[in-house]
């Protein structure tokens, strides 16, 4: 019992617990779309591309969430601009923009004296370092993302399953795709605080993938994805406290462990599954 209660006397641990639960739960839900649409590459790109925004905000001593969001929006426009003007395929445009933005972030950060420490914080996350203001902002944005998803769920699902039918019945397919990208970008920016740039894609993809192995219904998949995200977030944070290992990476490892467990334990050859 002490094992569970002892860390709770530290406010930073409680804040980390709340923050990680919120973000991991949200990632589990939005991750369902990332997995079903095959967007994990875009999620990863987004995570790298918001890096200079976070660093810039850090240097200007403003909120890193806003910096990240600004960079995410610029990146989305940048990818669209490069794709249209160059005629290159979208994955090339994404590759060019996301690595370029990431490099810009590294250069910006190198101007800071505590370069190495801050770099590793941003790369692998710092859930125990978040402020109560960050928690409220995370909660607010998380609720917005959740409500938008709830409002447009049936349209987003139809676009994912049968985009032609969506066009036939007159849905604005391009706008819905952009909406989904914005929601993914918001989630990524929130998640970077917790697990850092490099590990975000795991949170976005792993919980939802575990859920996919357990169910053949989208609604159940979203609930399971959120639940798996929250449980691995909480367990990971406790493990990190007691074993004195990096919290962001431990959360991701716990999540990965859950996935492997589900993968090994599931019945093979069930046609209802992937």
């Amino acid at each position, binding site marked *: 019992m002490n094992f569970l209660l002892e860390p709770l006397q530290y406010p930073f641990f409680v804040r980390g617990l709340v923050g990680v639960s919120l973000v991991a739960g949200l990632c589990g839900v939005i991750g369902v779309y990332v997995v079903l649409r095959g967007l994990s590459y875009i999620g990863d790109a987004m995570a790298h591309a918001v890096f200079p925004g976070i660093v810039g905000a850090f240097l200007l001593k403003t909120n890193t969430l806003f910096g990240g969001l600004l960079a995410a929006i610029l990146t989305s426009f940048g990818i669209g601009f490069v794709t249209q003007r160059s005629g290159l395929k979208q994955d090339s445009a994404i590759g060019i923009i996301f690595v370029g933005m990431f490099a810009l972030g590294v250069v910006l950060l190198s101007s800071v004296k505590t370069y190495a420490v801050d770099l590793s914080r941003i790369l692998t996350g710092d859930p125990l370092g978040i402020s109560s203001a960050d928690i409220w902002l995370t909660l607010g944005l998380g609720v917005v993302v959740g409500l938008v998803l709830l409002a447009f769920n049936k349209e987003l699902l139809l676009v994912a399953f049968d985009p*032609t039918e969506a066009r*036939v019945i007159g849905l604005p397919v391009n706008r819905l795709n952009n909406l989904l990208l914005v929601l993914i970008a918001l989630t990524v920016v929130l998640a970077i605080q917790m697990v850092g740039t490099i590990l975000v894609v795991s949170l976005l993809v792993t919980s939802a993938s575990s859920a996919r192995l357990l169910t053949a219904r989208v609604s159940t998949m979203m609930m399971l994805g959120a639940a798996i995200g929250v449980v691995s977030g909480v367990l990971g944070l406790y493990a990190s406290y007691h074993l004195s290992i990096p919290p962001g990476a431990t959360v991701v490892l716990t999540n990965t462990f859950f996935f492997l467990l589900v993968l090994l334990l599931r019945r093979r050859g069930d046609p209802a599954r992937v």
Partner: protein
Amino acid sequence: MPQTLPTTKRFPKDHSHQLLNVTDLVVSYGETPALTGVNFHLCPKEFVAIIGPNGAGKSTLLKAILGLTKSSSGKIEFSSELGANPTQAISYVPQQQSLDWSFPVTVRDVVMMGRIGRMGWLKYPNGNDRHVVELALKKTGVSDLSNRPIAALSGGQKQRVLLARMLARESKLLFLDEPLTGVDSKTQDSIFEILEAERASGKALLMVTHDLEAARTWCSHLMLINRVVIAAGKPDVVYTAKNIEATFSSGY
């Protein structure tokens, strides 16, 4: 060469109540015309089969009418009873293999997707939506599969589910792209029975197929195409050795 054949054959009579009227339609992919000189109209209680070899432009014709593919010239007119956005009032059954059947939804979920256009934004299914969906499931004989994940269906069952979604749209105009692929002959007959019931109830159907025999048996009109319309009309008029030869053994 097919170009020498008449390209302006129209279905006979009854201009009074056309749901769809296509005049001199041309569809091109880049410089290459995929389809030229298509003229026909479609009335309630007509079941038209578009027949031709691969690459003849069959699916292209459906997609051009739906506005999914741009036509280069010609006119596509709809009856005012289809409303302000007529293409959105067409129920379209895509080729089965064009969909991702590993998608984690149940049979009922897919059929309910047919109601999205009618529900509108920010709405959830109401009692009527659920009633229409159950009826569609029943008519197509998949009620007992309704909670099953679509990944667990056979080819024939998948086709029935797509038909059920089509019925749930409650459209007057039904477009079907190769609804007989991956289907055994028993299922094929029951699919045609479902479609015939729709026709008899006043719907108009346009079906792409390469199954000439089945189309001849079940459809009210045939349209033989191979980049141009080779012949169109009632089956006993169109189904001649000369027309079939011209459709399937052209120089393309």
